[in-house]
């Protein structure tokens, strides 16, 4: 459906420094996919989206939409954005203040060159689109009188009214307040699957990405770090950056000593070793990162810790503890590293207490250092 081949858009900067832009983005989306580009601000995800929309021209590469090239640097081809037939929702919604709701949504039909719409067809399409986003009957209102959430829906209606095959969404929920955002998240996903439209979604919010996407690309400093399903990204991060960016995690540095892929021995400090799971090859002696999610760690008093061969056990000392309601959050010093641990508030260890930390080898993931 949408295929990017080696798309690069680099902004001039000093030598090797990264100054925004994207390098060598390369992926292929099946029709009907909800695809999310996730990354910190300034990582190049919006640039990629704008390249697809035609708002920016990549320096290199090829973009195919429905098998047809819409951009090709080698052939000198760049179809202007208004002929790409793509729907887009902007971060600021970009609702034109001088038009009514109806006029805003009808605009793509009015300016369409590919197809002439009669007044009746326009009416029908616009009202359908407004109905779909839950704003039926709002057509005559002035667009500026509506709330942020409603403007968001108008923007969405405008993006789908001419039935594009591809829908681009540039951080559409970032300007909404928290409760509204959750509601819209569910609704956006429902809409997308009902319409069967392919969606490319840009966000820096991992929760949004995990909740809505079929496929996620995690991007950092202009490079795609991992491309995969939400489960892949969360449970099987490709590297230290992805593990750290998605959800909370503890990253421990250590030296790989070898072993079977599901039981790699890693030496953390002098003499302290743990057994971990690895999806990638390591050379013995190589420095690696081990990611352990706080929720997979069990905390116990030092003496109570039952020796278990299938579990790793480390001893540490409570640095601080804070009550978060459903859990207690600890910072625990283990050797010269600090770990975040969350545990049931039924039992509380005070700062200074010696504790045992244990986790299963499959929860400690060996990752390449970035």
């Amino acid at each position, binding site marked *: 459906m949408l295929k990017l081949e080696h798309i690069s858009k680099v902004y001039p900067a000093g030598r090797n420094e990264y100054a925004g832009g994207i390098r060598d983005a390369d992926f292929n989306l099946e029709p009907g996919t909800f695809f999310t580009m996730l990354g910190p601000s300034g990582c190049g995800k919006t640039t990629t989206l704008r390249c697809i929309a035609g708002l920016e021209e990549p320096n290199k590469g090829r973009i195919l939409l429905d098998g047809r090239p819409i951009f090709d640097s080698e052939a000198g081809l760049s179809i202007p954005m*208004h*002929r790409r037939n793509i729907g887009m929702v902007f971060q600021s919604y970009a609702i034109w*203040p001088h038009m009514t709701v109806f006029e805003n949504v009808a605009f793509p039909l009015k300016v*369409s060159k590919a197809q002439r719409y009669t007044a009746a067809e326009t009416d029908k399409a616009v009202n359908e689109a407004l109905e779909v986003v839950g704003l039926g009957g709002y057509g005559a209102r002035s667009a500026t009188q509506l709330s942020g959430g409603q403007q968001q829906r108008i923007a969405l209606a405008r993006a789908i009214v001419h039935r594009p095959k591809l829908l*681009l969404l540039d951080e559409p929920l970032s300007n909404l307040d928290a409760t509204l955002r959750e509601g819209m998240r569910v609704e956006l996903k429902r809409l997308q699957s009902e319409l069967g439209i392919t969606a490319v979604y840009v966000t820096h919010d991992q929760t949004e990405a995990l909740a809505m996407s079929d496929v996620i690309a995690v991007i950092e400093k202009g490079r795609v770090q991992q491309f995969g399903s939400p489960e892949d990204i969360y449970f099987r991060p490709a590297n230290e950056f992805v593990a750290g960016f998605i959800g909370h995690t503890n990253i421990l540095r250590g030296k790989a000593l070898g072993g079977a892929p599901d039981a790699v021995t890693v030496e953390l400090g002098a003499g302290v070793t743990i057994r971990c799971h690895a999806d990638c090859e390591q050379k013995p002696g190589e420095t690696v990162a081990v990611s352990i999610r706080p929720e997979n760690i069990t905390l116990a008093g030092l003496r109570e810790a039952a020796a278990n061969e299938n579990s790793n056990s480390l001893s540490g000392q409570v640095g601080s503890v804070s009550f978060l309601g459903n859990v207690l959050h600890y910072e625990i010093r283990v050797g010269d590293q600090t770990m975040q641990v969350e545990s049931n508030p039924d039992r509380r260890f005070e700062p200074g207490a010696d504790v045992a930390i244990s986790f299963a080898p499959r929860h400690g993931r060996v990752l390449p250092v970035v």
Partner: protein
Amino acid sequence: MAMTEQISMNRAGAEAPSLPRRSRNPTFWLTAVLGVVLAVLVLPSVAILIARSVMITNPDASFGGLTIAHFTRFFTTTGVLTSTYNSIVFAVFSTVVALLFGGAQAWLVERTNMRFKPLAYMTTIISLGTPYILYVGAWLFLLGKAGPINDVFRMVTGSRGVLIDVYSMFGMVLIEGFLWSPLVFLLLSSTFRVANADLEEAARMSGANVFQTIWNVSIKMAMPAILALALFVFIRAVEAFEVPAMVGMPGGIDVLTTDVYKSIKETIPPDLGYASAYSVVLLVIVGILLYFYGKLAKNAGKYSSITGKSFRPRPFNLGPYRWVAEALVIFNFVLLLLLPLLALLWLALQPFMRAIRPSAFSAMSFHNFATVFSSEYYRDLAVNTILIGAIAATAAVVITFFVGWLSARRKPGGVVLDQLATAPLIFPGIVMGVAFLMVFLSVPVPIYGTLWALAIAYTVRYLPYGLRYSYAGVLQIHHELEEAAGVAGAGPLTMLRRIMAPLLSPALVSAWLFIFLIATKELAVAALLAGPNSQVVAVGMYDLWVNGQGGELAAFGLVWAAVMTCLAFVFYAFARNKA
């Protein structure tokens, strides 16, 4: 070049030649067309000035060989030195007067709890609509030998002399300063309006008294804006023509601009070469000044502190000193508005210019008004002026709408267009008159002396003003609003028509009104370009003044100013709403 090559090369081996390519981009054609239009409008005037200044002009106005005689004459004439000196003194002191009057008022009105604030705005708005000649005429009468001020002086002291000799450098400075103070008020009041009151209160909380606060915080924060404005007024005063012509020339005080005017109008045949050399020197001076102005203006907003968050201007409490501020504003109102209007009314109701005496009251009549309303001459003046103003304002706004967008959105070529449209700023009005006079005389089309000649010259003169409005307007429009139109399927031209133009309309209307208002007052350009059949209000008024027909001038001027003031109110309401 490289891009065209690349495209044609690609085209040879392209597999899908039916697809649209970059070279068909409408934005490219828009840029190209605008580039040609602007080049044709702006460049010939500069070129011909330079050509005339370094070439011999034959008696039939054709070009002879190269010469540097015009420049050597310029640099060796002693009169030039005097004129330069006069220009500088005139500009410096009128800037000081304008800043003192306008600046103090701006701060008092915007930042304190004084009353009578509407008076200050009224003075400003009415002055926007009133031709300078009218003001100058009124003050010349007020301060003149037979005027009420010297009259009172004689009555009080019993002497036969005068308190003020208005046809002097002092008179010129005073009147020019008065003329500019409303503009200073307008521009500085917007600076003071956006100043954050928290900063002043923080100074008070740190233990500073009122005057320490005003000096160390209020004034110093506005300093970048004040400096930039001072240089701006200085430049305009160097270029000024009305006051030097009406006050300076009769008093035998020549400045640079009147020298240029005389070398065309009072020399037979017109000394085009010398006037051109003179103009080129003026261009260079103004160009250098504008360069520094640009640097200052960049810093002007350095300390402006609008945050958008809970911004609430809190007026300064002047306490027992409030009456001082109020007295100043009322004094200003009387001096800048009431007295000139009364003087004009007096002149309009008298059969000839005479001092205010009880005996003269019986001679009052509406005769002058009757003449003005029944005369075809005045009707033509008004119609011509409105026509030219409207054409120039429309043309300048349309051109700069596109240029402003191309430039603000950093489209290829936008910078060049921006510079072309800004270039006329370096032309003092009189120099632009000289330049266009020569351009129109050398084109084969008989355009000189027609309304079109004036309309074209005015359009060029006001391009920079239109551009500032549209450029700033485009910057305030979120780029996603236009990108959304593009993604929705609208080409660049459709987007400009359906999205950009409506969104920009407040700025465009403001620009149109502003240009119309100043174009209808313009004297310097028109003085050299208006022919017998293309007389405009400013030139007509100047002639009336020179011929001593003060009564009709005043009557006509009052009517005209009343109409223009209505427009100025509309303009002000618009500008205020937008801010």
